[in-house]
């Protein structure tokens, strides 16, 4: 019988074509690679503002806001008015309930003022939940001049979320409204 001889030479696969394709793929992924931008966010429930911002129900203007237990259940909005006199930056701040009284506050004291509005409720909170709460107010309405710059509004929004964020992860409720028509189109 004739013995079959197998070739002792190495059989090598030509990988050049595959390497070319791999480099093309690599070039595509490198060119389309965009590192994600470093961004954070304020997470909010933004319901449309009530037609009449302020108290509803039977509460009368000037009545004691803390003593009547019925009033806690009614919708109450704390309003922050921001005016810019068409400069884009905050020039005056008012805080309060529009149907009762609006109190002018220096912008630098806004945080202190907001803390004062919400502190009474925090002290009396018997539910045992930690963290700040909206107090008697169900929402904060930011009523800003339409020409105010967005970063200025965001600074006020940040202050509001400090007092409306709860420890149980409830999303704070803030409403936005514009004081007057938008000058652009």
């Amino acid at each position, binding site marked *: 019988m004739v013995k079959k001889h197998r070739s002792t030479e190495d059989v*090598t696969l030509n*990988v*050049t074509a*595959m*390497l070319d394709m*791999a*480099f093309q*793929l*690599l070039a595509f*992924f*490198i060119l*389309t*690679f*965009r590192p*994600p*931008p*470093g*961004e*954070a*966010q*304020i*997470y*909010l*429930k*933004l*319901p*449309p503002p009530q037609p009449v911002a302020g108290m509803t129900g039977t509460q009368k203007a000037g009545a004691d806001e803390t003593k009547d237990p019925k009033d806690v259940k009614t919708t109450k909005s704390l309003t922050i008015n921001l005016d810019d006199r*068409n*400069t*884009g930056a905050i020039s005056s701040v008012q805080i309060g309930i529009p149907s009762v009284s609006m109190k002018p506050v220096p912008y630098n004291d806004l945080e202190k003022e907001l803390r004062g509005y919400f502190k009474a409720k925090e002290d009396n909170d018997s539910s045992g939940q930690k963290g700040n709460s909206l107090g008697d107010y169900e929402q904060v309405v930011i009523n*800003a*001049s*339409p*020409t*105010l*710059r*967005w*970063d*200025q*509004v*965001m*600074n006020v*929004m*940040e202050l509001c*979320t*400090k007092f409306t964020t709860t420890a149980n*992860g409830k*999303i704070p409720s803030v409403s*936005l*409204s*514009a004081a007057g*028509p*938008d*000058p*652009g*189109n």
Partner: protein
Amino acid sequence: MSGSVPGGSQSAEPNLTPILDMVFQLITFFMLVINFKAAELDLSLQLPVIGSAKPLPGDTTNMKLLVLNVNICTKCPHAGCDAMATLRPNVDEDKKVKGYSLVCEHGHETPEPRDFAINNGRTCLSVYGRLLCKENRGKDLPSIEEYLRSEADMSLLGEKFTREEMIREGKELPDVVVIRADSGCRFGAVNYVVTKCQEQGYRTFALKTGMVAK
């Protein structure tokens, strides 16, 4: 004399297997980190920077996000160009902003002070490089309201309630509206977009901010 070198007839091929291995590893890396969602972000916007902003809470992978890039646009000042232009920062090598230019959809650049957006300029949404204004600008450029309505209709496809039920019963769409507004944008423009979203049934919003440098 013989001109042939002994062994010269054999081809000298480098072993490409290690380089191929390395290239495949690189491809795997870039495939894993590629993020097609970044395409819907308008990276020319300068987001406001505040201290206490946090990432979205909990598991965000199942959240449906509607990303809206809010900006102010104006007609391109370049002679004969009827496109809309937005403000872009001019950045030097150290990534410091030197000034601002209006850049239109056709690429014309005109230097412009940043404050133009306060008292004039039109509210616009930047959607994959297209600028949507308050009014319909022709084919493929619906108005902001039409665009938001179509997005809301897409969300309603997966819901058990109809648009009429949603409005009647005060239900809300589950999507989170991500507002990426330029810090120089006027409040009236952002408020217009937020109001139009609320009209379509969106209630949950994430207002984007830049990260504070530490």
